[in-house]
């Protein structure tokens, strides 16, 4: 019997995994279609896709190496050349192609911001859900600590950690995670507070299930939509923080290209060669705007009535 295989296979069988994957794929396509129905989604998604391509393959697609000092035919350095046929976005004070540097610079930025955000979401979820589930004084203490963390302006907080520990990539990831955690913890806590009063959680308690089982198996799946929205919102904040750290010289260290650092270095040429600063600034801005628009699209789509096949 077809159903028997499916029910009995609470473990892994290739057919079950295959079915689950197809199911997820169809669900994903359906969700995508809904997102593309919203204006924000239609604008945001292509922007994010372009950034995704650059993130994955930016340094291969780049016309020049991001470190090469380009020389003109007469052997002079092509310093601060404006946008031209050879250098679409011009060159910087060392004659490096800005387009190539912008394209290569996104990898470290997004990787750092993204992994920091993911780590922060994970930490925030555990703290928020655990705190809400335990309740009583645990909840009080944990949430007051989170409030304390949250009362620091996030950039100041980041600066504090980095200047104490040094600008190592791992520390930056950790910083982003720490800055992200309290906000996520708040949101997950309030979602959990509602869910834990639900009757299915109470019946799990009556079965004598352990707290981790209830949190991860019963409550967590129901918070995934909240978590998804939180992820995209926090991602754009994190990008901003990492870029700001770079701008202040505490980000990824040279010679790796970093958008924040590029903006900061381009500042001195703002009147004579504005492209040096404007190109990476535009890149950061479009990434953040794109992510925000996409978030908005997803949020609108999730409020739409779901389509049911006739």
């Amino acid at each position: 019997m077809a159903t028997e295989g499916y029910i009995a296979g609470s473990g892994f069988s290739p057919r079950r995994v295959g079915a689950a994957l197809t199911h997820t794929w169809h669900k994903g396509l359906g969700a995508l279609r809904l997102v593309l129905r919203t204006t924000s989604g239609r604008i945001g998604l292509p922007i994010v896709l372009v950034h995704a391509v650059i993130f994955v393959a930016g340094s291969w697609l780049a016309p020049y190496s991001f470190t090469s000092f380009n020389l003109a035919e007469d052997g002079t350095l092509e310093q601060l050349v404006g946008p031209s046929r050879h250098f679409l976005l011009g060159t910087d004070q060392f004659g490096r192609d800005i387009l190539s540097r912008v394209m290569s610079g996104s990898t470290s930025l997004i990787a750092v911001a993204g992994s920091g955000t993911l780590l922060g979401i994970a930490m925030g979820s555990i703290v928020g859900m655990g705190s809400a589930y335990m309740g009583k004084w645990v909840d009080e203490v944990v949430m007051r600590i989170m409030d304390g963390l949250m009362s620091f302006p996030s950039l100041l907080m980041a600066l504090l950690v980095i200047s104490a520990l040094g600008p190592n990539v791992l520390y930056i990831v950790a910083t982003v995670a720490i800055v992200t955690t309290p906000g996520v913890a708040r949101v997950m806590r309030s979602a959990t507070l509602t869910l834990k009063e639900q009757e299915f959680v109470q019946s799990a308690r009556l079965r004598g299930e352990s707290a981790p089982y209830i949190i991860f198996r019963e409550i967590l799946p129901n918070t995934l939509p909240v978590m998804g929205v939180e992820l995209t919102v926090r991602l754009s904040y994190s990008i901003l923080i990492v870029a700001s750290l770079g701008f202040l010289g505490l980000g990824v260290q040279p010679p790796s290209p970093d958008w924040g650092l590029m903006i900061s270095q381009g500042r001195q040429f703002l009147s004579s060669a504005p492209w040096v600063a404007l190109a990476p600034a535009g890149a950061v801005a479009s990434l953040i705007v794109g992510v925000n628009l996409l978030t908005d699209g997803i949020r609108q789509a999730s409020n739409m009535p779901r389509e049911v096949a006739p």
Partner: protein
Amino acid sequence: MTEDVNLNGGQPLVEMSHLAVTFYTPRGTVRAIRDASLRIERGEVVGLVGESGCGKSTAALALMGYLPGTTKVEGSLLFEGQEINEMSPAELRKLWGKRIAMVYQDPATALNPTMRVGPQIDELLQHHLQLSKSEAQQKTIELFTSVKLADPDTIGNRYPHQMSGGQQQRAVIAMALACEPDLLIMDEPTTGLDVTTEATILDLVVDLKDRFKAGILYVSHNLGVIARVADRVVVMYAGQTIEEAPVRDLFKAPRHPYTAGLLSCVPAPVSTENSAVQLSSIPGSVFPASLPTEEACLFAPRCPMAQERCRTEVPAVFDAGGDHSARCFFWGDVRPGIWGTDELRQEGERGEVEPVLTATSLRKRYGHWERKYLFFGPWVRPPVRALTGVDFAVGSGRTLGIVGESGSGKTTAARVVVGLVPSDGGQLTLQDEEMPSAVQDRSRSQRAAVRMVFQNPKASLNPKLPIRHAILRALRKFAGLNRRESLERARELMEAVGLGPELLDRPPTELSGGQQQRVALAGAFAANPELVVLDEAVSALDVSVQAQVLNLLDRHQDETGTSHIFISHDLGVVRYVSDDILVLYAGHVAESGPAESVLNSPSHPYTEALLSAAPVPDPDAPPTHIRLPGAVPTMRERFQGCFFAGRCPRKLDGDICDTTPPPVRTGPRSSKHVIHCHIPLEELTALQRNGTST
């Protein structure tokens, strides 16, 4: 009566003929109303009844001309001869409030929470009737008086949250009556209220019918309520009006098998005989609104009388004489017996049984004493005392029913028994063994022995997990079965609760409320429990489904000898399932004992009031007189005298009720029957006999 009005007016107030309403939604096409015809005359109350999903509320909204733009409306809907479906929004706005008014189910959402209640009505009067401010205020007070709100002069100064549910609903009715509308639509106006409050609102509706000339459409799923207020009744099924008749004819001689079925699904509130009649249930569920109308009778799949003709031909509406019509080929053959109601129910032995669970002086308080200025000042705010020394016992294989209004401590009692809410004092004994008060301190066998089913079937299954999860986990936790064995057992359980095993893989969202509640029962039955606590477990279900679940519980109890604690606000249902009854009021036991002793005289004045308030699905039932004003007190204050003295309709002269806690009296029929009241039992019996006869 209707004849006279017809002569005066010439045409009925509302005439709906062959109305069809179709919603086009992203979820697909919903045929909310397929073919509905009804008429409302001035000065009469038309009851509209049916299960959920039959199109009652859509019919009410259509009468208001209140349907969204993407809706297709066919047929005609005349209000005083004018077609509502063809009116412009501006014309409709002139009707709303002034000519047609509506009272919704939830009064809390119908009132603006940021405004005092009086000015909300003043505003309406100033706008529609161009009254001056002081005239409007005067009129508002008159309206408050006419809906019998206590303190009509000052109650308008309150905000909605400062009023009880019953007061709010009265204010909403006052608002609806403000412009003396010609048509008043009431959509389940008492569904969210306690029985005692419901009874007072129904009295008001009956009274309004005599005083105002308006036609009233009263929508309800509760046949008892309809029997109390309606002059004529229209029954809807799957978007069709299937029967229309004067109220007495409909209840005495239904001419459509669906109506007959609905009537036999409702347990009679009090029956003095020991053996109640077995409830019949309508199998299956309502014909889904997503399917197109078939060339057949839509009720045929569930009908016990269905013939070949019913499956191939659409029945017309037949005239059964005397203003009675039914959409059934065989209307002449419909009698109560078609649903098999003649069977008498097997009642268990009435002898003494060992108690499974004994609760001794259970106490539970919520909150702490609080000081006036946080850390300083006098102690001013005492905790809420939800249970104050409550004793009860559940006999082996018996059902203990717990009744009371909301706020009386029923749910707290249930949660204390299962251990979700640890008690602050008292003792729970499960089969001669003391049980810890919190669920996490109980042993696995104790947890397996006491299981619970919750009120809301939607929330009792995890929406993100397939329904097998709840059952399999219970089996794994309690029965210690391996995966294959527990799956095997889960399938048996599903069949035992009347569901196909193939449903195990579905998410709960694909199941109906009744099916979800059966799954919850299967999970509770999984580990052969000693005691199942059912907290309003059938209250959210339609009557036909409710009867299915009640019969299922009954059968399961007969087969396995499980004991039940059955909590409900519906006295009819409690009477049907219970062997013993516990009446709670404000965390105190008012009365307890064997069901027939508790429900018969002499009973505690509170029990008497509850019985008096319960709506009876019989238009000829003798009218009852005892009404309880107000609501259960907050239980923060310790009662000096009797806990019920503040609302007691039989309070004694002198101050004994206010100063001395009531003695415990033992009833004449059974030594287990106890009544906490100052009035001697002989006197109570005499009072109650007089009360019901006059």
